[in-house]
């Protein structure tokens, strides 16, 4: 992974928690081990000669739990890294974007809620726009342009050229086109319209005088 090399931060506060990362990491492992134990409670253990389904998971849970305890102990005795603070915005919006894609790509029902299958033409832009707001630097116009053009490209690439079984647009849409058009023709037409909207948006907003100063600010820092 590309994480920077760990550097131990100066212990700023004396307290029972010396290595925050280790302590909470250890506790998390113990919790996971306990969960695995709980979930395998009804399964048979078996013997070494004929192992049951629960034997290996339980052994592993014990081992994970022991690692967790050891790690937590390290966290209480040795100084270590603190957990970096992080905002909720990034994780929440990225996950929301993914969920939006998942529930709109095809009909989905969960806990009594049914969504109509809207296909890539809706799911793609939703993922980009909602997910895109995960950064405070997000700007709606840029995201919309990106969403329209990229979705159009993906529709043609995955649906038309590669023939992947991915729903591209809602069935109702076919009704809007002449009846003798094939699915592929409708796909190409909608992709073209989408791309045109994207490009139009790009051009229309650009013509409105020079871009505000902060644009140069952001893109200049790449």
């Amino acid at each position, binding site marked *: 992974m590309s994480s920077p090399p760990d550097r131990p931060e100066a212990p700023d506060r004396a307290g029972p928690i010396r290595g925050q990362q280790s302590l909470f990491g250890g506790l998390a492992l113990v919790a996971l081990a306990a969960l695995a134990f709980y979930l395998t409670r009804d399964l048979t253990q078996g013997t070494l000669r004929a192992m049951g389904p629960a034997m290996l998971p339980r052994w592993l849970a014990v081992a994970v739990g022991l690692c967790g305890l050891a790690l937590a102990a390290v966290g209480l005795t040795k100084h270590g890294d603190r957990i970096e603070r992080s905002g909720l915005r990034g994780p929440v919006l990225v996950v929301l974007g993914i969920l939006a894609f998942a529930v709109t790509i095809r009909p989905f029902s969960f806990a009594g809620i049914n969504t109509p299958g809207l296909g890539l033409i809706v799911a793609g832009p939703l993922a980009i726009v909602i997910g895109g707001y*995960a950064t405070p630097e997000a700007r709606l116009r840029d995201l919309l342009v990106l969403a329209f053009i990229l979705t159009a490209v993906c529709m043609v690439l995955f649906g038309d050229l590669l023939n992947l079984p991915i729903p591209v647009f809602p069935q109702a849409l076919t009704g809007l086109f002449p009846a003798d058009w094939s699915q592929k023709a409708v796909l190409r037409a909608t992709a073209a319209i989408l791309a045109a909207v994207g490009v139009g948006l790009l051009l229309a907003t650009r013509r409105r005088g020079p871009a505000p100063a902060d644009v140069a600010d952001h893109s200049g820092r790449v």
Partner: protein
Amino acid sequence: MGDLFSNLGLGFSIALTFQNLGLAFLGCLVGTLIGVLPGVGPIATIAMLLPITFGLEPVGALIMLAGIYYGAQYGGSTTAILVNIPGEATSVVTTLDGHQMARQGRAGVALGIAAIGSFFAGTVATIVIAGLGAPLTRLALIFGPAEYFSLMVMGLVFAVVLARGSILKAVAMILLGILLSTVGTDLETGEERMTFGLAFLSDGIDFAVLAMGIFGIAEILRNLDHTETRDVVRQAIGRLLPSKEDFKQSIAPVLRGTAIGASLGILPGNGAVLGPFAAYTVEKKLAKDPRRFGRGAIEGVAGPESANNAGAQTSFIPLLTLGIPPNAVMALMVGAMTIHGIIPGPQVMTKNPDLFWGMIASMWVGNLMLLIINLPLVGLWVRLLKVPYRLLFPAILMFCCIGIYSINSLPTDVMFIGFFGLVGYALIKLGFEPAPLLLGFVLGKLMEENLRRALIISRGEMTTFIDRPVSAGLLAVALILLVVALLPSIRKGRDEVFVE
């Protein structure tokens, strides 16, 4: 020897058909295109691009996938040199001197020597695979379940020793990975384990979903935390072809890097990841003036890059001969092969010689493609790297969603990449490395299967693992490695290698 050439001949007759050449080209191109994006390593790239090979026949699909893999690797190096952001662990070392060279206006030479070194390493590695494939396959036939189990234990111990940071944390991650692999229907009794009664978990957790979440989505979340300071080189790329002087300086490092990378890559347990580090350390030790390193020494790019590529390629050996994926990328290859109805292992070579040798020959073709397409396209990659992250990551996000959805057409898979993204993000925050977890997960199912089989054969005697000489030998190696890694003096050295 004659066998080797006739086999390679067969391979090239397949790899050099017009269609397969085109697929290798396309694979390298899209692999580099996605691999160049900062924060997208080979694992995420392959998982994203896996579906585009579904419509092809098996040989073509694997040739294209191999191309994607090399492309992603090379794309990672390009990003490391031009932006100082390593796409994955193996290109960390390249950032040290490669990016310095770029700042001195020698980005072109750095990219050039990386490509040429990689090509040379790839050529050697191709021959190594072709030469070792047959004998190792014969070795695999004498392996029983006990030997397989011990071999995988050794691989996992390797992964622990090679992981950065705390050994305890690495062990915990591997165990957790194996634990995750036991989720789903038990193969022997048919009982569901730890599925929460959810139907989509009864087949277990899909590897591509786990990998995409932990390596793709979690990486986005991690990058969002830091305000972006990407420093794409502003200097000119400069000439691409290294000068005579450069070549003279790089020949020995390329040779040494190739040897180091190729031999480490064969080891199960992601030995390939150590290659670039080892090559860099060796070059620094051998250099007349070690102070030049970190300031744009061409040896510091040539050695590690050759090692990287050699290792990337020889890590196919455990997969193709023993059927054991040595790292996460190879595990994705297993997934891809299974989709096309091929079960990796010793029988591939005898049952599908076309596929086996065609793929090996295409490795060399892929390396040649990289050399041909990448150098002229450097300008394009630079432009791509200048796109701000606030626009890049939503695009990556959508590609991840489309890629994972197309594999099984399941919306739940898409949701799970979000879930595992959060898990991976939490792991990073808690200081755990996700790579060992993935390896544990990859080997977990195979390990359980072989453990059970071995114990059935031995009637429940655990001693079977030390009674059988090969198995005992493998376990002994694992034990020695673990002890050595825990020795205080070695530990210090190990930390230094990774800090460098």
